[in-house]
């Protein structure tokens, strides 16, 4: 599949480029893809197939993260359909384990051991618990998340699915698809749901 990167991309460029799109931009994009295809070496677990775009990446890349409303809906529905829930159906786990996961930014880089633990890196982008001041601001603050929304089954289900696959609700979100790509297992995601929704979690104090 990665071998077809350029071919597939060229086809998509013609599909999505609007008639008045700048020819220059399309040419630069094509050359960018060629360069990326040429200029990387595999290292550690970071193999070259990581450069191949899946459908979500492809469409977001070709539309400056702004696909048409129809394509947005279609993409989100497809991603949502791929969400896997835990076998026992319980979506609220242990918020303490969730906090540890949210803190860890490890995993998936060429310096991390293959098959090693992957953290949620949630604090990289979000304010979450009141005691952690070193939080990023790429995503919205989640402090008080459960207090604001309650913890009804619907909210639990949404929160679980959002962490499992952020693109199921916002096709070109900046947030990774933690469950979808196998970074976090369902048993870990329920702990993060608890961190955000459990009334006992510091997030909701």
């Amino acid at each position: 599949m990665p071998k077809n990167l350029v071919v597939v991309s060229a086809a998509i460029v013609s599909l999505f480029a609007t008639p008045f799109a700048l020819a220059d931009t399309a040419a630069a994009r094509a050359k960018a893809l060629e360069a990326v295809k040429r200029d990387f070496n595999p290292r550690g677990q970071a193999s070259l197939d990581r450069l191949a775009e899946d459908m979500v990446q492809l469409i977001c890349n070709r539309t400056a993260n702004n696909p048409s409303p129809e394509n947005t809906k279609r993409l989100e529905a497809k991603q949502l359909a791929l969400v896997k829930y835990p076998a026992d159906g319980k979506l609220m786990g242990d918020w303490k384990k969730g906090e540890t996961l949210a803190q860890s930014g490890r995993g998936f880089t060429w310096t991390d051991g293959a098959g090693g633990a992957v953290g949620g890196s949630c604090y990289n982008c979000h304010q979450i618990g009141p005691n952690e001041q070193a939080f990023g601001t790429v995503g919205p603050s989640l402090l008080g998340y459960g207090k604001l929304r309650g913890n009804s089954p619907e909210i639990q289900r949404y929160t679980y699915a959002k962490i499992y696959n952020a693109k199921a609700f916002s096709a070109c979100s900046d947030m990774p698809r933690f469950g979808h790509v196998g970074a976090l297992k369902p048993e870990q995601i329920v702990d993060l749901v608890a961190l955000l929704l459990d009334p006992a979690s510091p997030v909701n104090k």
Partner: protein
Amino acid sequence: MRTLHAIGACGAVAALSLTSGAFAQADSIDHAKADAEFAKFRAEMEASNPAELNEMKGEGLWNAKRGPKNASLAETCDLGLGIGKVEGAYVASPRYYPDADKVMDMERRIVWCMVEKQGFKFEDIARKPFQGPNDANAPEITDLVTFVAGQSRNMKFAVPMKEPKVKEAWAIGKEIASFRAGPFDFSCNTCHGTDGKRIRMQNLPNLARPEGAIRGVLGWPGYRMTGGVMLTSQWRMNDCFRQQRFPEPKYVSDTITYLLTYMTGTANGQLYKGPGIKR
């Protein structure tokens, strides 16, 4: 005068390791205070910048006859402003070099000269191009880049953006910056595409704007307090791709040149203060 500076730098380095420990602790307490402290500390350091040691070594390497061809870069290497001319070359790169028929950033151009003019093997330079935390010294190429960069201190960035090949490289770099892929769907722009964002406590420059782009290129090459190593823009790009969960970019490849052209070109007209100090 240079020797005096170098001695001052050694003392500063010793003090540094203690101070950065204090910063690490302060990190969970009061960030505004830690930032202010770092700024003050950096201002004090600037007078005896540890990068000057690398600059001095780089100057020696630039002038020495070396390599299988026993040639000096000073006598053979054209950084864009004429053979041997280093003053102002760093702020005028990346640029197009007709002899190589390539747009190159400064590190890439010096490597090109070492291979073409001095006869060094590219593989030998590329094997370990960056200083690691356990290395006593920076690689020669880092010293050379730091020397050349120092010769543009307090000059304005003047990437020749009217040159069509440079313009094209800029446009390709812009596209690469928005290319999302890998297990986390990250592109450069995920972290550097909007104003005022942070990852943990690190402020992320928005590379699309002149104010952000200048922050991206200012202070590189830089002496990194964490680890006490001297690192170049090539390293910065390499480590950001690591964080992006991409495979490893090839050393001095087009992809890196394009990104550096995009950032430096966007920062054009702004003042370069020379090799700097990084957290």
